[in-house]
């Protein structure tokens, strides 16, 4: 089956920042993204857990966006600027997709 090479950008970012990251992706005309919840984690700044009434501070959310290779840099630069002062991890990997037109 024919597949096409794209990039999967995975952003783990602290919850209060999510709205800004999504606004950034919208601005850059990324075709789409999906936000996944996380329940716990640990980083250099300590550990967190989502049970109970907790505010957004500390908690992390995962954003996945599959984009064309040609768009990657255009998205990473401003993401880096945004995330550098905040809590956030951005990783990119190669994926094969079956519908070219979608991205």
């Amino acid at each position: 089956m024919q597949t096409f090479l794209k990039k999967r950008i995975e952003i783990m970012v602290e919850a209060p920042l999510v709205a800004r990251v999504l606004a950034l992706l919208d601005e850059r005309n990324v075709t789409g993204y999906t936000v996944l919840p996380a329940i716990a984690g640990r980083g250099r700044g300590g550990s967190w857990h989502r049970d109970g009434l907790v505010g957004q501070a500390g908690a992390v959310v995962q954003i996945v966006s599959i984009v064309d290779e040609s768009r990657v840099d255009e998205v990473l630069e401003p993401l880096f600027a945004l995330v550098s002062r905040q809590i956030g991890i951005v990783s990119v990997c190669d994926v094969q997709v079956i519908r070219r037109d979608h991205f």
Partner: protein
Amino acid sequence: MIDLAVSNLLSPMVLFFVLGLSASLARSDLSIPEAIAKGMALYLMMAIGFKGGAGVAVHGIDSRLVYSLLAGLILSASIPIIAFCILSRATELSRVDAAAVAAHYGSISIVTFLAAMQALDSAGLRYESYMVAVAAAMEAPAIIVALWLARNGGKQPGPGTIHEVALNGSIVVLVGSFAIGGISGADGLKSIASFIVDPFKGVLCLFLLDMGVIAGRGLRDGRRTLSRAVVAFGIYMPLIGAALGMVAARIVGLSPGGTALMMTLCASASYIAVPAALRLALPEAKPSIYLPLSLGVTFPFNMTIGVPLYLFVASMFR
């Protein structure tokens, strides 16, 4: 005094809080799903807002309402400045961290406020219904002052941040329910009393079980990240806040119950709205300092020692 303190400490409310705290410290896996905790928080906001509004509708608008709101705003804006000065001198915190901590103490903890209201009810002390509105008014100003302290003339919080804080979900529910309660009045209250009045105290108990677990987690984190000077601040700052609140309440002429609530508001520290706002507006400040301090030190202190103390002091003005 001792009677009041003991009866408060042995109320189901405080006992459930202590149960949660102990379970958390003993590393039990007891936890309440986030959705349930948020649902209960919404319920409590809706209930106290509505009851407060209906109370105002019944008793009429008091000239003191406006003064109380003003007092709340002024206190919420000035307590951070005092806290900041103390922190700068008495602790090793950086300018930015000190400002962030100060913001928490200027703002309020609605759960502590609820606990104080419940303790007043149990003790048979009355209070002004509009204190709920005062609580809502005190949520935000401290944040703006703290950002100004942190930046000291640097770039100001964008309108985005202010919008986010002011239209924060829990404030909307609290203020909105207050307005709906005011419009619906006694009849409205009666029609939904078996939802928002009767089970209220029980829900608060279950909610405090959860808050105990969270506070215990905060306490455990705090052991690692907080210096002694900072922990001490988390205990004496509420007393300073309460004293200021008491003076303001006497000037405005609040009832003993209202005085106790004003003291509690000034003594309590935010741990939900302010941390979220600061992550956006002041990301350089370390959550590992302000979260455990507010949640693991000041909140349990107020729940067990602070609230009965404020009640006792306020009840002397009868």
